């Protein structure tokens, strides 16, 4: 009885998000209070359900729900530890971002549309996380593309529409590759669940037809690489910066790029298996691309004058650490990569929230206009500082932890060059974050910002989320050694799932 109830949890959590979207759409623009209630209620319920799922997994329950969509293709949601890593992250940040977005979009138009698609996005992200086979993964991956598009073009001006076109051009192109790859995989080996260490049927197939297997792997990785913003497919991400700050926060920290990176993990580790992917000479290419992306993103970030664009290029760079962790092929590196999935999410969402606060409270988008903003908005700026230092990899913050594991993991595998990439990245990160911190704290204000409604800081709805996520960045680093920290959970995933690495 209890076990059956647990089994339905994944579906319940998914439907919570979908139902929230439906209710928000149905309420329309006018009913603000009801919408706020349902948004928070939905996000809170979903988080609770996901935490319950985590509890269930710790108890050893199987959390699975599946139904046949087609003869030979099942829609299957499974809560394995890896899925929960991503699901907890996205549910938690959904709740926080919802709070932030309600405050941020105060008074702007089309809020029902915004929050409706926002909820759908989270439903799709959740589906990506819990997808138990490639078919299900593809379905939610594409749904995510569709649900995010209205958010990217939310403001509706020409620049937003152009960015939306770029966004879709990339993501739907990637989706087509993923579709072809997934269908080809199904044709070759039939339906197989994601299996830690790789699907045995795929290994047999690769023995028979190594060329086809490599081509399909390339298609699959090409498909997810778009969302993971892997060089040279990263072009959509900076363009998508036209979206409102909560969208940037959600897109860049949680939903889209992480779905891509998560896809890389699922394909390399749970579909082909690392050993096979390495045998097919795909992982070296992948690590090389990740390294290039890390450096390229950082270098481009240096040159950006606008805060959100600099953060966007920083995302391009940082997300590839996850890919790098997967491609390096050692347990420690994978732990680092998976921990970074969460860490980068927390840090980057903090940074985007802060950027939103500056834009909303001061009206400033450019970095060179932020001189002295630290004294004006100390809380926001402190949070920004914590997250930026974390990004650089300063101990004991979250970013340091993941980079450390990546580094020693790569060393253990004899890939010393990864250390070089990490060092270069840290130096570049410092080069583009430290000047911002200097402006915030050390330079005198060049402008006289009028106080809005008697407040100097951003108002509560914008401030509390930032404080929360910044604290999380701190705690994820400080408490990394505990079993339920992101690192601890990542270690658990790797030790249980990938003992063979």
């Amino acid at each position: 009885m209890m076990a059956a109830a647990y089994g339905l949890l994944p579906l319940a959590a998914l439907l919570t998000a979908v139902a929230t979207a439906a209710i928000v759409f149905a309420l329309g623009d006018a009913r603000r209070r009801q919408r706020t209630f349902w948004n928070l209620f939905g996000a809170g319920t979903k988080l609770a359900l996901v935490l319950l799922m985590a509890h269930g997994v710790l108890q050893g329950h199987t959390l699975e729900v599946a139904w046949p969509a087609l003869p030979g293709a099942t829609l299957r949601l499974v809560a394995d530890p890896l899925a929960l890593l991503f699901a907890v992250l996205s549910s938690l940040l959904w709740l926080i971002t919802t709070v932030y977005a309600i405050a941020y979009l105060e008074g702007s138009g089309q809020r029902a549309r915004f929050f409706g698609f926002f909820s759908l996005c989270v439903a799709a992200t959740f589906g990506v996380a819990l997808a138990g086979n490639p078919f299900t993964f593809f379905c939610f991956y594409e749904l995510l593309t569709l649900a995010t598009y209205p958010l990217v073009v939310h403001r509706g001006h020409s620049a937003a529409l152009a960015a939306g076109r770029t966004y879709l051009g990339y993501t739907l192109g990637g989706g087509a590759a993923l579709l072809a790859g997934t269908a080809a995989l199904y044709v070759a080996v039939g339906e197989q669940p994601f299996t830690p260490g790789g699907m045995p049927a795929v290994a047999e197939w690769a023995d028979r037809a190594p060329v086809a297997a490599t081509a399909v792997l390339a298609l699959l990785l090409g498909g997810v690489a778009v969302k993971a913003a892997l060089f040279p497919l990263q072009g959509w991400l900076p363009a998508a910066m036209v979206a409102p700050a909560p969208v940037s926060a959600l897109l860049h920290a949680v939903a889209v790029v992480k779905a891509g990176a998560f896809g890389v993990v699922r394909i390399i580790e749970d579909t082909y298996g690392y050993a096979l992917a390495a045998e097919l000479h795909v992982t070296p290419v992948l690590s090389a691309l990740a390294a290039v992306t890390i450096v390229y993103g950082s270098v481009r970030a240096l040159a950006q004058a606008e805060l959100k664009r600099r953060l966007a290029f920083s995302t391009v760079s940082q997300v590839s650490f996850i890919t790098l962790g997967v491609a390096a092929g050692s347990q420690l590196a994978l732990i680092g990569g998976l921990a970074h999935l969460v860490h980068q999410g927390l840090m980057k969402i903090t940074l985007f929230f802060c950027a939103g606060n500056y834009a909303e409270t001061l009206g400033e988008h450019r970095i060179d206009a932020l001189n002295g903003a630290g004294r004006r908005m100390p809380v926001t700026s402190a949070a920004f500082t914590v997250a930026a230092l974390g990004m650089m990899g300063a101990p004991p913050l979250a970013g340091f932890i993941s980079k450390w594991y990546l580094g020693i993991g790569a060393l253990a595998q004899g890939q010393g060059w990864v250390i070089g990439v990490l060092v270069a990245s840290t130096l570049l990160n410092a080069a583009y974050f430290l000047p911002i911190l200097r402006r915030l704290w050390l330079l005198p204000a060049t402008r006289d910002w009028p106080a809005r409604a008697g407040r100097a800081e951003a108002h509560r709805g914008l401030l509390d989320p930032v404080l929360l996520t910044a604290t999380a960045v701190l705690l994820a680093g400080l408490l990394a050694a505990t079993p339920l920290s992101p690192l601890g959970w990542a270690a658990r995933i790797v030790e249980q799932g990938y003992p063979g690495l």
Partner: protein
Amino acid sequence: MAAGGALSLPLAFLLPLLTALVVFLLGARRAPWLPGIGALATVAAVADAVRHVAAHGPQAYHLGGWMPPLGVELYADGLAALMLAMTAAVGLAVTAYAGPYLHDGHHHQEAERFWPLWLVQWAALNGTFLAADLFNLYIMLELVTLTAVPLVAITGDRASLGAAMRYLLLALLASLAYLLGVALLYGGTGTLHLRQVGELVGAGGPAAVAAALITAGLLLKGAIFPLHTWLVPAHSNAPAPASAVLSALVVQAGVYLVLRLWLWTFPALLSPAVGWLLGGLGAASVLYGSLQALRQSRLKPVIAYSTVAQLGYPLLLLPLAAVPAAAAQAWQGAAYYIVAHGLAKAGAFLAAGNIRYSLGHDRLAGLRGIAPELSVSVLALGLAFVSLMGLPPTAGFLAKWQLLSGALGGGQWPWAAVIVLGGLLAAGYGLRVLAMALAAAPSDEPVRRPPQRLPRRMVAVPLLLALAVYLLGVSAVPALRLLEQGAPEALG
């Protein structure tokens, strides 16, 4: 002398017909509830037919108790049952929608004329899906044509009259080509029954000529490239409920018959070369229709060109049917495509009808900053387009997946490439429309004319149709299980 199958088969034809006659007799104004009753009765008959097919396998009803070749048989297998059900869903939706659309004070004359025509058309469509007799099919096709043409012309403006004229001339040519082929087949086999002809006809020269004539006629009715020229003006100038039935049902009946006849009557002639020719035309439709849809500046032509594109997919079954590894999945994919397209396209045209009804135009550029009153219709349009793009979680996606898996499984790369590319192009034209609908109004916009208020039912119907596509996107298994009833032996 016994009828055989379920009584609901002839009822699916007779009920909408009788409703049409009574509506004409009493006048639509005096009995506005009558079309709704008739529609519900028809849906009930179709539901019963579907139930029979699902439970007891294919149903053959011998009208008058005469067995073929003497009598006319109505035959419902899984494919026909799916078509009937899809038509019933679209038919019910259109009937519900047309009520408020026509009875708003401007369209009284149109209402009097619309109802009998549409109900006769529904009867004829059901007849087309059920008839297992080549000559009876000819009459049903003519009946569909002669009801479709006035629906195109119903607004009576220059554009729609020209479109109707072109449509009528080409459709009559198509019917005669078809009948010419039927004459040859009867001359060679002495029967008009679909499967009996299939057993007797062989693969000789006369059979090939007959098949070519019949196929040409049906491709013209199904608006397959390069015989599609009539479709876009006709479908984009008709009023919304008419556009919906024309695109979702009427042209699809042509494509349905192409599949029906090639798989049941001419399987012996379906050589790889013929398969490639027909599949090639389908592929050309997919690509040409999508590219044209990208270039339109009005909403309804975009949707109409999308019809041309979508009609091409089911034809991809014909080259795949002969490849054993591809046939079964391609068959399921093609059939599901017709269903998915029918529902999504009806939803899209009705939603577009709301936009036009409310704004008085459907120029894409004029959709910027669309009023909140239309947001449900825009949502319905968007939801329907997602299925046309073949993206999850829609029925269109499941159909595409099956077709694509079939093509890949049979090692038929070119068709797989067409399917993927067609999906991308559809995304292109679909999102071009949606981008406009999501766009903010230009700041220099003059004061907007307040949109005409939409009756609630007109708002709800397209949304429900679109949502049906998602319901079918959750699982295709029930529909595909139905489809297995009497699946063609010619596959594989």
